[in-house]
């Protein structure tokens, strides 16, 4: 058990460190990362740890500043999507069948919508920017988790005490708050983690496909530029594509560690271990 908790703490520590970088890093650097300070494609040196990109901008600065964009979108998407998934999934798990069915059909519809054209549409009509992007991604990723939450509630239902409570005439709201939330809450942690992870990776994938905004600083944007400038085919992938990729991997792994540790802690059926 101690090892599990240690992993959780390690994850939390990593996340805190990354968040600190995202918050104060750009301020410490004293630059917005857009200044051209070196030759294009300059390799790393003692002065410039990660070298420079195709315009001669410092890649280390971009890595630090990119943390803000990537963590920002992850946080926004995860918050919005988790809230939506909890609400819809939770209600669908407890509501009368017809309402549950309606909700689940809406979920099905969202799952079935083609994602990419909606993204283009939103970018064209709602304007550019992180917020719009996060909103669109969140609007599309909440549906899957909502099904999982509902599945969790249904499974919890089978454990009996919800049925007992209902038999005693408890209202749906009371059920949701008093009995379902201890069951749903541990489910939400992985949902939050998964959506945050999805958001970061999705953001990078969209950038890779040329559908992102290549002027917003983020780790995905860095990989995009490394990829369109062919860094993968030269040594430059080591200092251009690997660091932001690693940053994504580290962030997502840290998120997952925290998620798993919290999930274990919150799960009532696991408490005996402690």
């Amino acid at each position, binding site marked *: 058990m101690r090892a599990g908790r240690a992993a959780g703490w390690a994850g939390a520590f990593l996340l805190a460190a990354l968040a600190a970088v995202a918050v104060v890093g750009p301020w410490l650097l004293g630059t917005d990362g857009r200044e051209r300070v070196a030759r294009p494609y300059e390799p790393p040196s003692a002065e410039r740890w990660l070298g420079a990109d195709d315009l001669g901008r410092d890649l280390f600065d971009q890595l630090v500043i990119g943390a803000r964009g990537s963590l920002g979108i992850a946080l926004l998407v995860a918050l919005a999507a988790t809230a939506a998934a909890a609400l819809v999934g939770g209600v669908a798990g407890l509501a009368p069948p017809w309402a549950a069915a309606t909700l689940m059909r809406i979920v099905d519809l969202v799952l079935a919508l083609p994602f990419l054209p909606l993204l*283009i549409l939103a970018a064209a009509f709602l304007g550019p920017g992180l917020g719009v992007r996060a909103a669109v991604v969140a609007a599309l990723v909440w549906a899957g988790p909502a099904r999982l939450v509902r599945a969790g509630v249904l499974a919890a239902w089978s454990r009996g005490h919800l049925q007992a409570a209902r038999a005693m005439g408890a209202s749906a709201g009371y059920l949701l708050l008093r009995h379902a939330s201890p069951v749903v809450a541990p489910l939400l942690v992985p949902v939050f983690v998964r959506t945050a992870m999805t958001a970061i990776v999705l953001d990078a994938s969209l950038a890779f496909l040329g559908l992102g905004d290549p002027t917003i600083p983020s780790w995905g944007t860095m990989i995009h530029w490394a990829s369109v400038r062919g860094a993968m085919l030269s040594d430059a992938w080591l200092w251009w594509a690997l660091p932001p990729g690693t940053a994504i991997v580290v962030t997502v792994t840290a998120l997952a560690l925290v998620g798993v540790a919290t999930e274990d802690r919150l799960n009532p059926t696991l408490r005996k271990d402690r």
Partner: protein
Amino acid sequence: MSHRTRRRRMYTLRLLAAGLLLAVAGCAGDGAGSPAAKEPQTASALTIAVGGDQGTLTPYTYRTGYPGYHLMSLVFDTLLVLDPSNQVTPLLATGLTTSADSRVFTLPLRTDVSWHDGEAFTADDVVFSIDYYRKHDSVRFASALAAVEDVQVRDATVVITLDKPDPEFPVRQLADMPILARHVWSGITDPQKAPVSAAVGTGPYRLAGYEPERRYELTANTAYPIGKPRVDKLSVSVIPQQQTALAALRTGEVHLVADEVPPNLTDQLSAQQGVKMATGSNFSSTLLVFNDGKAPFDRVELRQAISAAIDTRDLVDTILLGQGTVGSPGFWHPEAPGADTSLKHSYDPAAAAAKLDALGAAPGADGVRVLDGKPLSFELLVYADSPDRVRAAELITEMLGKVGVKTTVRAMDADSVDVKVWPDFDVAKGRDFDLAMWGWSATTMTAYTKLAGLVATDPKAGSLNVTGVVDAELDTVAKELLATTALAERQAAAGRLQQLLAQKTPFVTLYYPAGAYAYRGDVFAGWAYQQGWGPLNKNSLVARHG
């Protein structure tokens, strides 16, 4: 159970670590290429990577531009053809006689040519093609044919008469228009949906197989009388991701990557064993366009000031690593026929600032100049999927910021930009933007009429006037150019128009990238770079007789 799992995992990790190290070593170490002296001019099989599907390779259904047109022209022949230096040379026609007033074009035809299905090629097919294009006018080959008054056939010689002089008719039409087989196309009423079976031409290669979005198989037309195809089997594979295509070039799965190689990779790639680069000029242009009809861009002085604030040399050196040509203020590529090479862009931020001062645009509190009560702060539209242009937009933002003009780069999906700059591809439909990164394909540099098309106010003549510039002087010279009857006169008018463009600055011509294409020289080295376009063309793949 868990013990075994761990061991397996450790092994996997070790393998992975070794893999990464090897990959690094591989990237760094493959360089020492042996100076292989042999440069094969023929090959039994060749694979070409293209970035996307190129249609069914008929004149109505190919994907326009490079390399779609060039693949299609391996199957179909034209009457004349442009050689690597863009001079008109014979192909299906054995020669060309032009009347003094550039109205009558006489073309004696070859008599030894047959279609891929064995039928003989005759003058009838040429007459049919002209009629067919005129009837089904949804391709560009139709536009210049509107002026055809009469087509006569005398002893295997075609005589085309126009109702008005067109000195550029040979280069923009006769060397461009693929000839259709009457016996195949007379039955096709909806050419936009021409099936792949209509890809029957007289060209050096026949289309043997087509798997949409995947692959084309072309085989040598051994009966081709004009020359000998140099490759027996040509396979064209669709590889959307250029990095994958270049990796496949290294492994030898692919022998030519039809898309340009980014400048930073040219050295790296040519150091690989067997890999060579074909380099030359590229007539496609990159521009900064203003919405000239909208304040404050209707003021010539403001446009000149912005132009002077842009360091185009820096753009070429930074974005293209010097592998490109600085834009001529007269738009025309210095290496394209008829260019006024004396025109040079002048980068002078001090003069730009002085011009803005003279206009009365004084800097506001935030350093952004204010003109007529409005800050000089604009949105700069750019295709998100065009890395060079996005980078250029970012650098321009930096450069203009120094003279107190603020721009915000807005990168969007290509169609979303087109809708604002060139709605429905019809300049008469207006425009809704301030500044945009723009560009014209290499085709634009092939005819002087296009130069007039950029600035003429009549939407028919000025079909490329996306800036919406309205200027009496530009209009006059454009009209003069279109009215010329001899090629020399037209070229002179084009020179005058280039000078006027430099002065009026309806847009800023930033640069023309150099073309660099990677191929496996150890498998086939016969690629002939056609100036302005690239190596994938008929000249490369056919050894002409005589």
